[in-house]
């Protein structure tokens, strides 16, 4: 079964540094998403992306965040200047259509020190 893959599985960075989290969605999917989950808390929506542009974003997704689909296979989340509170699991997801269920990757654990 095709799956969403995310790299790295764990990223440690210092406060103020930039990080890029990478995702390879399922190949025939057109809708892409980022969610995050702070340890012990709920899975939170960050942003959705379709047709090379952001379609929705939450209030968490401020100017420090950006997303990009640099080529036909990758989907990235960039955090420009990380803060301690950005420490969380970041999940990428994709869906074939707007109405299809989301397929999630296994996440990148980001630790900001």
């Amino acid at each position, binding site marked *: 079964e095709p799956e*969403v893959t995310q790299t790295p599985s764990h990223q440690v960075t210092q406060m103020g540094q930039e990080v890029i989290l990478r995702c390879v969605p399922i190949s025939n999917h057109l*809708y892409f*998403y980022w*969610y995050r989950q702070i340890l012990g808390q*709920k*899975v*939170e*929506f960050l*942003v*959705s992306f379709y047709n090379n542009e952001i*379609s*929705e974003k939450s209030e968490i997704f401020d100017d420090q965040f950006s997303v990009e689909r640099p080529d036909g296979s990758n989907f990235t989340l960039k955090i420009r200047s990380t803060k301690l509170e950005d420490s969380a*699991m970041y*999940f990428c*997801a994709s*869906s074939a259509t*707007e*109405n*299809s*269920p*989301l*397929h*999630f*990757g*296994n*996440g990148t*654990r980001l630790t900001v020190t």
Partner: protein
Amino acid sequence: LAKTTQPISMDSYEGQEVNITCSHNNIATNDYITWYQQFPSQGPRFIIQGYKTKVTNEVASLFIPADRKSSTLSLPRVSLSDTAVYYCLVSERGSGYSTLTFGKGTMLLVSP
């Protein structure tokens, strides 16, 4: 968005059937009900989705009464590997699944 309420935790034993009920009293006409499963340190995994009556797949069944104000996820003959958090979500079709809002879910613990 319709708010969902589900038990915080449930306990079961291997081989038993587990039913997890979710309340969504203010569900709208266009809303669908979707259940996800999440293991520790993994992303949520889609289990099943339905609109009304009963839906069954190879993993679970979903029962939705006529008023659609609740739904029950049924897991037949659970095993230890079914220990996970189960999320009930309500979302409007056509508005994009970006509107999926995860609650705290139900932590199911299956014991030998």
